[in-house]
């Protein structure tokens, strides 16, 4: 039997810009170009400048610096302090978001009707700009003498606290502000995850003599684990690079008491005008963020298999 000769419409569509694929590429290219200009190029420029001396205060030293910026970082006490604060800030705010969000989601799941009201209320803090959140906490909530939180604390007899003006309360305050804004996100994701759990396995567990606590530990937690890990990944990446709310509330102060790595990089670049060192700090934050999320993603897939 003889096969027909290989001529067809498909044969003519081999070039990159011919046929459907070419048309698709043509349609995507403006968007792709904007994306490259706004993300890839600044990122490459950041990495390049982290190997340079660019200091507007001492322009006469400008030039290629090699690994100097990174070497300086290793012996910079303020850098390690910022690292430490970033870790405290990220771990505690993500932990609080998950714990409070899960608790609220479990409570709301018990409500037979009207869950939609809580879902809508939960969206409100999320849609506020972080800068607004920072300012609103600084003025309405935490301001000594006038803020609601300070008022409550005074009424309870603990006296007025300078929430954003003394070191430890300042750090706690910025953690609370971040938790306040982003717990609803964890709440919504975990609520959706809880709502999707099949009810009959809970009935099976009740028949198998598991009490409410055992059902939570042995059934609920393992089943919503993927959702928890996703929330941890997303929130950790955002918390590591948090900026606006802290900047608006404390500006990293008092002193460096709430100066997480992102704020330190910003101040170095745009207050002290040392762009080279600021870039190196930003790159180190980038590496940490990628590393942490890489480990978390790995944990997620490793456990699933």
């Amino acid at each position: 039997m003889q096969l027909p000769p290989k001529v067809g419409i498909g044969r003519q569509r081999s070039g990159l810009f011919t046929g459907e694929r070419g048309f698709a590429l043509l349609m995507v290219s403006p968007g792709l170009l904007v994306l490259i200009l706004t993300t890839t190029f600044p990122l490459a420029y950041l990495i390049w400048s982290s190997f340079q001396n660019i200091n507007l205060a001492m322009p006469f030293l400008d030039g290629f610096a090699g690994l100097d910026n990174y070497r300086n970082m290793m012996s910079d006490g303020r850098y390690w302090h910022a690292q430490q604060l970033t870790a405290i800030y990220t771990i505690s705010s993500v932990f609080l978001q998950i714990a409070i969000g899960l608790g609220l989601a479990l409570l709301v799941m018990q409500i037979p009707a009207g869950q939609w009201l809580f879902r809508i209320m939960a969206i409100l803090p999320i849609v506020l700009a972080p800068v607004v959140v920072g300012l609103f906490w600084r003025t309405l909530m935490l301001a000594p003498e006038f803020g609601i939180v300070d008022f409550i604390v005074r009424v309870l007899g603990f006296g007025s606290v300078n929430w954003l003006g003394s070191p430890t309360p300042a750090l706690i305050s910025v953690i609370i502000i971040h938790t306040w804004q982003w717990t609803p996100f964890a709440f919504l994701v975990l609520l959706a995850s809880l709502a999707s759990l099949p009810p009959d396995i809970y009935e099976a567990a009740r028949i198998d003599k598991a009490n409410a606590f055992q059902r939570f530990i042995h059934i609920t937690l393992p089943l919503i684990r993927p959702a928890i890990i996703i929330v941890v990944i997303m929130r950790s990446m955002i918390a590591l690079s948090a900026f606006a709310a802290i900047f608006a509330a404390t500006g990293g102060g008092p002193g460096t008491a709430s100066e997480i790595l992102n704020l330190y990089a910003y101040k170095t670049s745009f207050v002290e005008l040392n762009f080279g060192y600021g870039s190196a700090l930003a790159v180190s934050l980038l590496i940490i963020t990628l590393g942490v999320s890489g480990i978390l993603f790995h944990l997620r897939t490793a456990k699933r298999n």
Partner: protein
Amino acid sequence: MNQASDNRGRVTLRGIRKSFGSFEALKGVDLDIEAVEFFALLGPSGSGKTTTLRVLAGLETPDEGVMTLDDADVTYAQPGERDVAMVFQNYALYPHMTLEANIGFPLKMDGVPKDQIPGLVREAAAKVKIDHLLHRRPGQLSGGQQQRCALARAIVRQPRLFLLDEPLSNLDAQLRLETRVELKKLQRSLDVTTVYVTHDQEEAMTIADRMAVFLDGNIAQVGTPEEVFNTPRNVDVAAFIGSPPMNILKGHLDGTKVSIGDYAFNLPAAVARSPGEVVVGIRPSHIAIAQEGLPASLYLSENLGESMLLNFDVGDQLVKVRLPEVCRFADNETVRLKFDPGHVHLFDPQSGTRID
């Protein structure tokens, strides 16, 4: 294993009522289930059989009525306090646990010492022939294997009451027949009171020692499969039991003489009832084609392989006839149907109850 044989697992339900919103699922159910009995709850969907099973399990609290288990009032007892086990329709296995953990879960929750659990799990798994799959998760198993895992999880604890909610309905036809036989064997070997919900009356007939027919939130009849099949208590049960179910026709009774239109035949014994209208019920296999009888024209014939199922137009009604051997009929062919008088059932046209 024979803890159950000392008369454990006697259940009574008295006046159980349950509503979901405005829907009345159970309208006063009374039921007695004996120890070690294989009892089927049979009925169409929405008839209340699954709600009854869930009341037995403690997953639903009745609005009214009393349930006792071995003479103890358990109406408001939690599921875990009743020592019952249940196989759910879609198995309800814990998806994140291996089969071993699934089957061992009730033991772990029951506080069985850790070193005893693997042995008991293996024993239960071996009974349903899945002991080679213990390291797998439910998602890696076929429907039949998941079903066996659900069975193993239910029997591992040696419960007082074994509840099965349509356990075979998600299996394919071949597997259903095989599992049905195994289930019956398993129940006999375990000696445990078993309550089995099904809408498949063939399943109930073959597997159960006794059964309750649910219709519209009430129990229409309780009895052995033979009793229910041979002497249905009312016309609704008669029309539900049997595959295909009984033919129901309007007729007239006068002494021993029953007439349907122009066709008349005599019953073997007189019925103590004044002459008047009756409802005549007759199973498809108790009708023959003869020279004399009820005139009927063929609507459709179905070849079942070893028998024939013929659908006849009689007046404005369809009458089904099952013939023991395969034969050919032309469409619209007119024949005469002869009823076997010994197998005719009569019902009151108003109340629908059986006339004996």
